[in-house]
């Protein structure tokens, strides 16, 4: 290889090695000897002796002649040992900083310097291989997430097959051997004196990045050390490093996210039965708080170094998911080498767990089920899950949901400081954990719910899969799970865009399993009531976060199970009800404070159910019994799934009769409820039909499992009867046949959901946003809107979106705010011919477009048709300031010519009217006076340079803080027509939604409550 130094015709730059000896060990001599063997021409050596052994200096002189030995106290930190080098040695261009465990291979320093010179690296490290077995890798640098978790490029112990032998940018190189540019070392002040244990190396590299330097792994240079020496950075030091090096604007997000990560780590530690991890995660915060002054001082020092914006450094970091995977890794596997091997071992164990008591059929079933799920979703995985029905979109920034949740901001409608829905935080957490962006998070949340339902059904079936000998009957579990997976309920919920149905499908098997196990109706060991309540409570709380009426559903299920159980184990019925009711109460408690909002009389049903329809749906009892509720068609074969239920009711004996009776009661009860909601216009709206039918699906599938068990107990080996054997045969055939339509549904590849949403067919509207940000008012049949809406009339709902993007929070409309009520009032005024200027009433709210969809998706898709009332269209057509635009036959689009841009500045002389309709109608439109409409901000802090005038932040002023050149600005109370109007002079405006300590405490308490409940539900103690 050509030597760039020689090519450039310059002398080799002077290099000083700094070797820190911490304690006597056999590798000291080898480490120093390797330095002596280096042939780099301008090399000087400094050895820092922290061993406290008086014989060491002499030994150093013998092995490394000419080295400067500097004895220090053994308690000296790494930084205190190394940092003086810049004072002790002058003229060096690079420092090579080593510890006493690392042995350099010949030529390592020269190669490090060559590449560092060539690539202008600030910090570089060699490829480190195992001291005993050089074919095993120890380190080739590491990536890092924003929390300071190191993610090694190579697993320690991984076989070296030259797969990492390219020079690459990394975030950090390990402490054992670091080449550091001397000028940068001086600039950034060397190592942080408060860090040790490897954190100081990460910190140095992080600050090098902030100072604009590159960090490289240079595999051509090799060093050796024992793979057993690799140790993780202590949790508190990692946390400190992240807190110190993160910029001020990112710091709140980091703290919030880290709190969430701590909660995850606590849960993960409990789940993986390594509570030490949970303790360490919590104690880290305690350590940081007790060293807060040091942290703040370090932050001030780092602030003076910043050359590169924080966001550029973040671009060098990896997502948090990379580290999260390591939480589940068995520490015993570290250093054992084969990454694939350890993965294989985990897979084998997982498979073994899946096969509990079973056969290879279990594995086959699960493989087939997962493959079918993936095949059936292939077009969604390959493309994008459209925003249809309640499949609302998620923000591109994964931090946003968590942050707005922690700040207590609900962006539904026009925004408010009402307690944000718990589901918002859960989705934010999910978005943090899942790579691939918001669309992937949405899709995998749905598919994950389906898969969760199957696993829950597997566990539920296990309760009834008890053979005559007491052993687990795998066939029962397979039968129940397969039937559950094949029922078209989840497919129809996805196809119709009803997230509630999918959530109920995923959660209810777990609920029923807990009710059965906690009530003792099933023959297995009795789960303690507290554990059962905790399980019902946690699962119910998760489901309630997305289906607010779910606790009521659980209560009804428990009552039905208890009713059916009266056929057998009547004494246990009371426990089922107790567990159901208490678990539901716990669900509501875990969703506080959001669940407290349900008490609002004007908003309760908007959250619990849906907008009341003008006419009954009229699917018919037959369709409900076949779960034929959506686009995935099911023929008469679908009735076959009911055969197993009839079979167990007729044939089952003993405890099986109790369970069968309970399942039958659940099925009959919820079919009747669903039928009533389908056949009549009830005075109160009910949840989506898939939510109501989810208990029926669970009952039918569990009956299939129970049927197999019943066959083993009550049919097999018994004398022939005109009922038992023929009915068993018929039920089996019917159940198998009934699966065909569900399995055939995978052919579509997208569960019949429309292949696009209105963001595609109406995309030209988004392109007009250069004139300012805007909102869209959607009105029409609730099933055609892109989000759950508010009631406008029976069968008619409305919602608002930010541009065409449906805010995630719109999944939980809640009670309309006063501002939202202005929209309803304005539309009703137009409907009553009280005004022909609806646009003028809506304009100050930033509503630029009014869209009335007649289908749930664009005209070129298969989206079903839901006609809006013609009078609504006539009303809008008659408005003088609404201009009809022809874009999509499936939606009437009107542009409001009197709209006021959001986040704009209105001219100072504009007389902004009040919110009273008469005053607004009498005023001239103020849209022409928007003199600047380019600032963009969300719930985050952001700044913009604005001209003098009235600044409109486009949302309610409550909770927001506006500062002009550092001075607080109060809202203009007279400009009540506009949302968040502030009189400002020309200058730099900072708009932020500040953190609230009260809200943070509430969020922390909620996280803690979830953790406690989760921990209680994990207990496996059983009552004999």
């Amino acid at each position, binding site marked *: 290889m050509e030597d760039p130094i020689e090519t450039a015709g310059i002398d080799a730059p002077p290099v000083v090695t700094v070797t820190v000896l911490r304690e006597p060990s056999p590798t000291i001599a080898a480490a120093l000897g390797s330095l002596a063997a280096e042939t780099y021409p301008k090399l000087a050596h400094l050895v820092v002796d922290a061993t406290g052994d008086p014989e060491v200096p002499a030994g150093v002189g013998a092995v490394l002649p000419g080295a400067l030995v500097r004895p220090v106290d053994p308690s000296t930190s790494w930084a205190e040992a190394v940092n003086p080098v810049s004072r002790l040695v002058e003229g060096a261009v690079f420092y090579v900083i080593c510890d006493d465990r690392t042995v350099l291979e010949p030529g390592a320093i020269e190669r490090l310097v060559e590449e560092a010179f060539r690539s202008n690296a600030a910090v570089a490290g060699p490829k480190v291989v195992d001291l005993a077995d050089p074919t095993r890798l120890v380190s080739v640098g590491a990536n890092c997430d924003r929390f300071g978790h190191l993610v090694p490029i190579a697993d320690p112990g991984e076989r070296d097959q030259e797969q990492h032998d390219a020079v690459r940018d990394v975030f950090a190189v390990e402490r054992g051997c670091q080449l550091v540019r001397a000028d940068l070392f001086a600039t950034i002040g060397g190592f942080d004196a408060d860090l040790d244990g490897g954190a100081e190396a990460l910190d140095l590299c992080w600050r090098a990045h902030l100072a604009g330097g590159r960090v490289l792994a240079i595999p051509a240079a090799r060093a050796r050390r024992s793979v057993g020496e690799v140790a993780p950075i202590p949790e508190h030091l990692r946390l400190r490093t992240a807190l110190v090096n993160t910029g001020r604007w990112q710091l709140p997000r980091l703290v919030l996210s880290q709190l969430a990560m701590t909660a995850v780590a606590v849960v993960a530690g409990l789940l993986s039965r390594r509570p030490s991890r949970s303790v360490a995660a919590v104690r880290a915060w305690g350590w940081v708080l007790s060293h807060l002054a040091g942290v703040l001082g370090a932050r001030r020092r780092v602030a003076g170094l910043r050359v590169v914006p924080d966001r550029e450094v973040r671009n060098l970091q990896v997502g948090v998911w990379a580290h999260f995977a390591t939480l589940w890794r068995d520490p015993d596997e570290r250093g054992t080498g084969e990454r694939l091997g350890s993965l294989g071992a985990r897979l084998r164990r997982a498979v073994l767990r899946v096969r509990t008591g079973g056969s290879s059929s279990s594995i086959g079933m699960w493989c087939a089920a997962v493959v079918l799920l993936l095949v059936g979703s292939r077009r969604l995985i390959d493309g994008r899950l459209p925003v249809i029905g309640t499949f609302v979109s998620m923000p591109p920034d994964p931090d946003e949901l968590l942050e707005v949740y922690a700040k207590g901001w609900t962006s539904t409608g026009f925004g408010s400081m009402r307690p944000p829905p718990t589901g918002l935080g859960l989705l934010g957490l999910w978005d943090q954990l899942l790579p691939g962006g918001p669309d992937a998070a949405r899709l995998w949340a749905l598919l994950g719910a389906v898969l969760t339902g199957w696993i829950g059904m597997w566990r539920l079936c296990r309760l009834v899969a008890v053979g005559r000998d007491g052993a687990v009957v795998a066939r029962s579990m397979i039968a129940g799970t397969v039937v559950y997976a094949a029922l078209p309920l989840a497919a129809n919920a996805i196809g119709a865009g009803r997230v509630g149905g999918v959530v109920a499908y995923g959660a209810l098997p777990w609920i029923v399993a807990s009710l059965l196990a906690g009530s003792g109706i099933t023959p297995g060991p009795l789960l303690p009531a507290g554990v059962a309540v905790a399980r019902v409570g946690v699962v119910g709380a998760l489901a309630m976060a997305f289906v607010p009426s779910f606790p009521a559903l659980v209560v009804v299920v428990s009552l039905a199970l208890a009713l059916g159980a009266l056929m057998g184990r009547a004494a246990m019925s009371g426990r089922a009800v107790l567990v159901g009711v208490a678990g539901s109460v716990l669900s509501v408690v875990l969703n506080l404070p959001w669940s407290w909002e349900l008490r609002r009389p004007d908003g309760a049903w908007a959250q619990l159910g849906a907008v009341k329809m003008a006419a009954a749906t009229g699917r018919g009892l037959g369709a409900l019994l076949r779960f034929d509720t959506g686009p995935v068609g099911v023929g008469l074969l679908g009735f076959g799934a009911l055969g197993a239920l009839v079979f167990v*009711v007729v044939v089952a004996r003993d405890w099986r009769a109790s369970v069968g009776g309970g399942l039958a009661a659940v099925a009959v009860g919820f079919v009747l409820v669903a039928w009533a909601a389908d056949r009549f216009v009830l005075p109160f709206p009910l949840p989506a039909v898939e939510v109501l039918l989810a208990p029926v699906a669970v009952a039918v599938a569990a009956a299939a499992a129970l049927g197999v068990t019943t066959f083993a107990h009550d049919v097999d080996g018994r004398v022939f009867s005109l009922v038992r054997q023929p*009915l068993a045969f018929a039920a089996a055939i019917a159940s198998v046949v009934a699966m065909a339509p569900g399995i055939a549904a995978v052919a579509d590849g997208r569960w019949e959901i429309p292949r696009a949403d209105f963001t595609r067919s109406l995309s030209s509207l988004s392109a007009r946003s250069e004139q300012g940000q805007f909102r869209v008012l959607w009105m029409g*049949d609730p099933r055609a809107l892109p989000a759950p809406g508010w009631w406008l009339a029976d069968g008619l709902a409305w919602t608002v979106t930010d541009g065409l993007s449906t805010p995630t929070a719109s999944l939980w409309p809640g009670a309309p705010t006063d501002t939202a009520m202005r929209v309803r009032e304005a539309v009703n005024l137009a409907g009553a011919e009280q005004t022909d200027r609806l646009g003028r009433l809506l304009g100050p709210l930033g509503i630029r477009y009014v869209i009335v969809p007649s289908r749930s998706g664009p005209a070129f898709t298969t989206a079903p048709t839901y*006609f809006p009332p013609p009078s609504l269209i006539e009303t809008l*057509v008659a408005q*003088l300031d609404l201009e009809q635009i022809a874009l999509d036959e499936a939606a009437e689009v009107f542009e409001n010519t009197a709209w006021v841009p959001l986040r704009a500045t209105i001219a100072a002389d504009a007389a902004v009217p009040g919110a009273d309709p*008469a005053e607004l109608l009498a005023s001239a439109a103020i849209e022409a006076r928007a003199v600047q409409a380019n600032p963009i901000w969300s719930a985050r802090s952001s700044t913009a340079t604005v001209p003098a005038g009235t600044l409109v932040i486009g949302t309610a002023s409550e909770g927001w803080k506006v500062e002009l050149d550092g001075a607080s600005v109060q809202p203009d109370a007279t400009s009540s027509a506009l949302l968040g109007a502030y009189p400002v002079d020309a200058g730099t405006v900072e708009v932020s939604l500040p953190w609230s300590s009260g809200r943070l405490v509430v969020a922390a308490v909620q996280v803690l409550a979830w953790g406690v409940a989760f921990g209680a539900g994990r207990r496996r103690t059983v009552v004999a």
Partner: protein
Amino acid sequence: MNRRWFALAAPLALVAAVAADQARPDPQLAQFGNRLGLPGPAVRVDPRLSSTWYCPGVPARQSGDGVVSILNPGIEPVAATVTVFENEVVDTTSTSLTVPPGQVVRVDLATVRPSDMDAVLVEAVGGEVVVEQRARTTAGEGGSACASDVARQWFFADGSTDDGPDGAGASYRLTVFNPFAADAVVDITYLTPDGPKSAQDTEALVVPGRTLQVINLNEAIRRESQLSVVASTRSGSVVIGRVLAFDGSGARQGLLANVASPTLSTSWWFPGGGIDTGITERIVLANPGEDRAEVELSVYLADPGSGSTVPLAVSVPPLTSVVVDVASVQGMVAGPHAIGVSSLNGVEVMAERVVDDASGETPRTSAVVGAHTTATQWYLAEGVASSAIDAEVVAVANPTGSPVSVEIRQIVPGGASREVAVVELGPAAVARVPLTDVSDAEVVTLWVRADTPIVVERRLRDGVPWTMAVPAL
């Protein structure tokens, strides 16, 4: 129950339940709003936040040519914005004003935006108003109530483009007013006694948003002495009016400046007609439908003692117009009367009454779009000072089969009203009420109310055409 029987009964019950649940509820769309869809100019009687009126076009070259009168019949002042649109000009001129309660504010369009033709959009906030347009040219004076709503179809039965060999005679300008932001596409077709006609220039006519377009029908359809107009939009909604001037070189002289009818109907009423020496009266019937209309024309004499008439049956072929001379009605006598037109076979038609008055020094022609609705309250915004009211007449017709008591009240400043006259009308009767006792107000506005639905029309003075009052619904 024996389980064996349950095994049999359960599936059967299931099948029976599914079979019994075959009836499906009727699909029903959501109910939204309470738009009455009032055809033609009308006032809403319920409390109003705002109201909008559309005056599709009057000349406004110089002061007095075109005037828009805004009546506030309420007891609170009403703020109004008057936006004036010029022919084919996108730019508009707006002016704000306040209409005091019980008063009329007249806007002289030439002072706001002088032009060959102005359309006016009146938006009132704080209550209901009544708006009328009047025009005055060398041919004469005419006017009507403006439109209180837009529509996708408009009809005129009477009309002429017979401008004679020297270019004199009738000058027919159709005004198409699109007050909305979006463009409208309008098709205009024509009906004559000989059948339908079309003009390429007026098919798929694009009327840009917020503009007025004036169409010279003399160029589109040449020399048709009887021309009915049917306008329909392919997209958007508009308001259509006409400025039809007869210079007297032909049989007629006068100015028609009124708004078309947005609807067809099976019944039309004309309370204010009459024939006499030198006065001829015709009913023009236009049938734009595909079916022949069998129409009956009934005359109700103001003086029942002078005799009785026999209803005249008229057959109107599809896509044609028919002119009926009222004098041909059997039993007809000179004097005032009301006319009722009803379609016997349910085919809707358009009816207009034309009166040519050659009894005075200057012959005058007038054409009035009939009333197709009846109401218990009517408003008359335009009026004249008391010194000139000796010939002002209000005509009231009772189309019902029961007697009615009619009260004519003058609206005075402040919104109160005072009684002017009380008329008792028998079934199917008509009355003429001369206004000889009104206050010295500069403008005389009237409010007519009855205990059963009636129809009201007014003639301001001799030589000025009759105008239909505005119903309150």
